[in-house]
């Protein structure tokens, strides 16, 4: 067994990485690294991990609750034995060379001992200093001693030294007086530490644009003008207004809401000529959520282009418009005026010049994303370069590398990104970081030695120990804790019961271990706070005392009792007794569970030899694992073979050739050209694939993971007379034409580009994402070659998101003409000489500015055709038992937080197979898929969950309902025996199958029917007597 790096040590350069910034990107990067066996130092400036996501109420386009999806990742991160968290810390310097860096980190004083703090909140209650709450963007007050937000992780309190009366003026000390555990330490000082690591990942994120200095929209002058972030906090159920939207002017809910887009984005005048990429969707989401809050509310979005370019974004846009009745007005805001009643009059102009006035109750400024404050200093400290907007600089073909070798970047730090893109880039950056480390495969399973240490309790009658926690006065101030502990003594099977001051304190944990020994306890119940935070701690404790960790149960008498019934002490005490009784009822039936190891094959199979497939192969191959790269065609490169230019000027073909060479000569990568997959069976760590090789023979491979990188196809259109003239080409064909310099005969003066051919309409209700940028890119290339060519665009929305915006401006400023068309009024195309295959093309397009048709006799018509999912996806999806969405694209496990995983473990997706994306995005996602696969492949075995489903085959009739309801393909009906078989490696323990089994053949370990029945029944007798 390979030795794991120990958390306490600062780690060795060979197997440790520093991650700066604990937002979603930093968390994801840390978790991926830690799962590969890398020791991680996670450095975070604020007192909590989580970053921007906890500030969000919901996330687009699924309206998932942001905190619901993030919280499990946060606790996983903080609990991971290989992740050392340094909160309130800053990275000051990186010295050394890639693979051997020394990082200087300043840990700022917290003034509260995190070991002693029990997060009871008495200090905050008593603290006399009210300050503006940063988390709630000033909409609420907090104290000088506080938690960053209610669900902060870590949950301990910290003192804000700028505002603390004692630290600033030497008076007060109230917190010290009320702290029941003596956790306050005014003598705390900043510490400097040095960390030796192999690589660094930067993930410091972004700041929202601050419109205060901007003036134009009356922000801060008019009380009902708010930023989108402020509005988000208003929408949040845990926000300052409890999820009620209120106008600051009178506290009433607004009836008419306006969103102004591109505030701080796409604005040359304030040096922000880039698109923040997320604000359109953010505003659409907010308008939908606001309308869900109040049906009468009217919402209008004022925009330039709606940039709903991501996966399923256009459907969301469509839903907002057609289902929720959100108004979209393409216009420019000319003026905003506050009326005496606090409402706001907007003056805006449409593209045809019409001016309108309209009054709203509240105006939301859709503020853009900008580099984080202090990023310039950081870049100097760390010696990394920034781009001209102040974002961390990276290039098209190395989107996750900074200018400094060995230092990687992810999240929105180097370009505006939404959540899934941040997660993708985080996993992707990890691939770069691990390539600098020396990692060996490790075995996370419990050693036999440890297993033997565990007491065998089978056959013993339950001997339950109950520990009732005072939590200082948090519980004992309301609940009669002694009475509850006394009551527990009388319960069946309770061998020992006592009340304790702080169950989670080190000395009490020792007490619990002693009592297990003294009373030969074989089940433990702790009545204290919530199992969501404390169950792992107590499980570890009883495990140290030789009990199986699953022989533990918690009764939540604080968060769900004393805190919620502060004025009803008697009832709260009664409730606590019931909760303890229910806990004992459950505990009585608990049985030891083990997490069975599942061996993992170290190889990976990658389906598809395009840019994504090759990149993923390199990520895994470079980490020392064998890779099978299978490609249907007889050549590597996929769609990239047709890409010749990119904005930055570097040569895609050169990069492609380098990549192919690397792949072909890599001693870990076996390239299988001209090969097709016939069958894939098995599960995570244990896949078996049969394929037909170039000679037409069947070959078999075994591997631990699968990456789907099957790419996409250019849509074959029959619209706009495509195919009938040499002068009508697709953007792909045009790019080759530009590259080869082979243009249609004669002069090339008039060139028309039609966007969204096949995209964003019936049959393909999605944006193909890259066509706008591609068309702009090719138009600029055309300019270079034919300076006199006139370029016309027929478009619906120009979606040059991110830094591509600059090139769009360049093209526009250079005189290209843009005509916006609608689905009802598409451009009309005819051949001037219908029978001539080389005829020039007459394009008629309606100009909404002049409000009349414009006729262009074009020398060339270039169609931006959609990206289609290959039909073969369906077959592969069936073999892998993974889903496709309605557009035939592979459907990831979770659109926000698991963007490259499938719900079925061990299978990943990247590139166009997931959804349309550009080269940089494909590269990042391919690396991410490689990383995610490595989180499995780096382990010799993985541990199945302890709480998983099990089958009693004698009861099973094989009806298959369990198989259908399982989201993880963890159950199959054995066709021979006609009974359900559970794959322990895949089961996540949700229990949906169990509740769907009529026959009682399934049960869920840890939450068995018997255990739950005894919880319901534990109150039966009493209940029938009445309380």
């Amino acid at each position, binding site marked *: 067994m390979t030795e794991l790096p120990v958390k306490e040590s600062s780690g060795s350069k060979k197997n440790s990485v520093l991650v700066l910034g604990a937002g979603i990107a930093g968390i994801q990067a840390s978790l991926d690294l830690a799962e590969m066996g890398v020791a991680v130092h996670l450095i975070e400036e604020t007192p909590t991990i989580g970053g921007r996501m906890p500030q969000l109420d919901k996330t687009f386009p699924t309206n*998932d609750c942001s905190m*619901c999806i993030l919280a499990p990742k946060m606790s996983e991160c903080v609990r991971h034995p290989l992740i050392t968290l340094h909160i309130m810390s800053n990275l000051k310097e990186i010295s050394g060379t890639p693979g051997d860096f020394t990082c200087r980190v300043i840990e700022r004083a917290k003034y509260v001992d995190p070991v002693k703090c029990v997060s009871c909140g008495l200090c905050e209650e008593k603290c006399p200093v009210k300050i503006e709450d940063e988390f709630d963007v000033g909409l609420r007050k907090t104290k000088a001693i506080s938690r960053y937000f209610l669900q902060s992780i870590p949950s301990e309190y910290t003192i804000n030294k700028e505002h603390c009366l004692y630290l600033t003026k030497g008076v007060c000390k109230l917190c010290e007086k009320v702290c029941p555990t003596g956790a306050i330490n005014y003598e705390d000082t900043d510490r400097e530490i040095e960390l030796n690591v192999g690589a660094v990942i930067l993930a410091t994120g972004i700041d929202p644009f601050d419109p205060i200095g901007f003036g134009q929209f009356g922000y801060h002058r008019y009380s009902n003008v708010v930023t989108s972030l402020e509005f988000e906090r208003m929408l*949040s159920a845990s926000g300052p207004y409890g999820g009620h939207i209120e106008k600051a002017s009178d506290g009433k809910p607004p009836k008419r809401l306006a969103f102004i887009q591109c505030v701080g984005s796409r604005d040359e005048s304030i040096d922000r000529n880039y698109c923040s990429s997320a604000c359109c969707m953010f505003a659409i989401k907010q308008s939908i959520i606001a309308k869900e809050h109040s049906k009468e509310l009217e919402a209008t979005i004022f925009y330039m282009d709606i940039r709903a370019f991501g996966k399923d974004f256009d459907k969301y846009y469509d839903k907002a418009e057609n289902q929720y009745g959100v108004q979209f007005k393409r216009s420019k805001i000319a003026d905003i005026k506050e009326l005496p009643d606090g409402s706001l009059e907007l003056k805006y102009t449409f593209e045809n010049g019409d001016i309108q006035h309209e009054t709203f109750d509240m105006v939301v400024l859709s503020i853009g994303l900008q580099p984080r404050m202090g990023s310039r200093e950081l870049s100097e400290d760390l010696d990394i370069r920034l781009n001209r907007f102040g974002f961390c600089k990276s290039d098209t073909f190395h989107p996750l590398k900074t200018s400094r070798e060995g230092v990687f970047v992810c999240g929105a730090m180097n370009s505006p990104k939404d959540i899934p893109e941040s997660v993708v880039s985080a996993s992707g950056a990890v691939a770069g970081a691990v390539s600098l480390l020396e990692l060996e495969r490790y075995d996370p399973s419990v050693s036999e030695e440890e297993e033997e240490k565990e007491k065998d309790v089978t056959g013993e009658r339950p001997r339950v120990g109950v520990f009732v926690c005072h939590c200082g006065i948090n519980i004992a101030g309301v609940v009669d804790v002694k009475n509850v502990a006394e009551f527990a003594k009388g319960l069946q099977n309770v061998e020992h019961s006592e009340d304790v001051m702080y169950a989670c304190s080190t000395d009490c944990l020792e007490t619990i271990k002693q009592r297990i020994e003294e009373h030969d306890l074989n089940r433990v119940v702790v009545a204290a706070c919530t199992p969501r935070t404390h169950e792992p701690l107590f499980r570890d404790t009883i495990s140290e005392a030789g009990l199986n960790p699953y022989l533990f149960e918690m009764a939540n008498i604080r968060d769900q009792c004393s805190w919620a019934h502060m004025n009803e002490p*008697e009832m709260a005490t009664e409730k606590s007794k019931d909760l303890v009784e229910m806990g004992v009822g459950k505990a009585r039936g608990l049985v030891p569970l083990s997490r069975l190891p599942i061996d993992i094959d170290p190889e990976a199979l990658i389906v598809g030899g395009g840019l994504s497939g090759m990149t993923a192969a390199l990520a895994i191959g470079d980490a020392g694992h064998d890779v099978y790269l299978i490609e249907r065609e007889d050549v590597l490169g996929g769609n990239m073979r047709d890409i010749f230019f990119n904005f930055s000027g570097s040569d895609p073909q050169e990069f492609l050739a380098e990549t192919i060479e690397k792949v072909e000569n890599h001693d870990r990568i076996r390239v299988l050209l001209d090969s097709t997959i016939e069958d894939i069976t098995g599960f995570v760590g244990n896949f078996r694939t049969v394929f037909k090789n170039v000679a037409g023979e069947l070959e078999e491979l075994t591997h631990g993971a699968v990456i789907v990188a099957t790419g996409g196809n250019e849509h074959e259109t029959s619209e706009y007379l495509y195919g009938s003239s040499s002068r009508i080409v697709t953007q792909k064909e045009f790019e080759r034409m530009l590259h080869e310099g082979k243009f249609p005969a004669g002069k090339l003066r008039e060139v028309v580009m039609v966007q969204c051919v096949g995209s964003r309409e019936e049959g393909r209700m999605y944006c193909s994402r890259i066509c706008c940028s591609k068309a702009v890119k090719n138009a600029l290339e055309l300019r270079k070659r034919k300076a006199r060519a006139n370029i016309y665009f027929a478009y619906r929305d120009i979606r040059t998101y991110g830094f591509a915006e600059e090139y769009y401006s360049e093209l526009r400023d250079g005189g290209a003409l843009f005509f916006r068309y609608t689905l009802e009024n598409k451009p009309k195309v005819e051949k001037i000489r219908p029978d001539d295959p080389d005829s020039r093309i007459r394009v008629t397009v309606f100009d909404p500015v002049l409000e009349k048709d414009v006729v262009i006799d074009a020398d060339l018509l270039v169609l931006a055709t959609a990206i289609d999912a290959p039909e073969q996806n369906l077959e592969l999806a069936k073999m892998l038992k993974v889903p496709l969405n309605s557009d035939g694209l592979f459907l990831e*496990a979770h659109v926000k937080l698991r963007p490259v995983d499938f719900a079925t473990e061990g299978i990943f997706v990247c590139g166009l197979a997931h959804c349309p994306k550009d080269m940089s995005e494909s590269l990042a996602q391919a690396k991410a898929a490689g990383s995610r696969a490595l989180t499995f492949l780096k382990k010799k075995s993985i541990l199945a969950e302890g709480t998983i489903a099990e089958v009693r085959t004698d009861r099973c009739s094989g009806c298959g309902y369990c198989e259908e309801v399982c989201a993880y393909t963890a159950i199959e009906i054995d066709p021979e025996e006609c009974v359900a078989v559970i794959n322990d490696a895949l089961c996540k323990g949700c229990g949906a199958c169990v*509740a769907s089994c009529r026959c009682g053949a399934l049960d869920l370990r840890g939450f068995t029917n018997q255990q*739950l029945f005894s919880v319901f029944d534990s109150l039966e007798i009493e209940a029938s007597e009445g309380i």
Partner: protein
Amino acid sequence: MSEWQPRILAILCNWCSYAGADLAGVSRMQYPPNIRVVRVPCSGRVDPLFIMKSLQSGFDGVLVSGCHPGDCHYISGNYIARRKFAVLKPLLEFIGIEPNRIQFSWISAGEGERFATVVTKITEDIRKLGPSTRLVKKL
């Protein structure tokens, strides 16, 4: 205590509704102390029989709560659960069980206030109905 107090069972999913209940406490939101919470991994784990057994053993009401549609930690467990409840609730009402005794809700990890509101509402509704009699097994 002489006055009758309703006793209500709440079966909450671990990831959203249980977290929402915790948040209600952390935020010190006050709600009636009549509920007894049982934690399950997912609302999809809830067998309708749990509800029937609870009513039979004398609970005056039962609340089952999970993640909002789309939020399920286990991808689709709440949808699977929803179908069961969508049939169970009308069936129980049809045979004459008072509608307010059995309730289903979606409460997210961020909705502490919603949890408090839902619990308050259920408790008040059941208080109005009085003690459950219809499916209670008389010992």
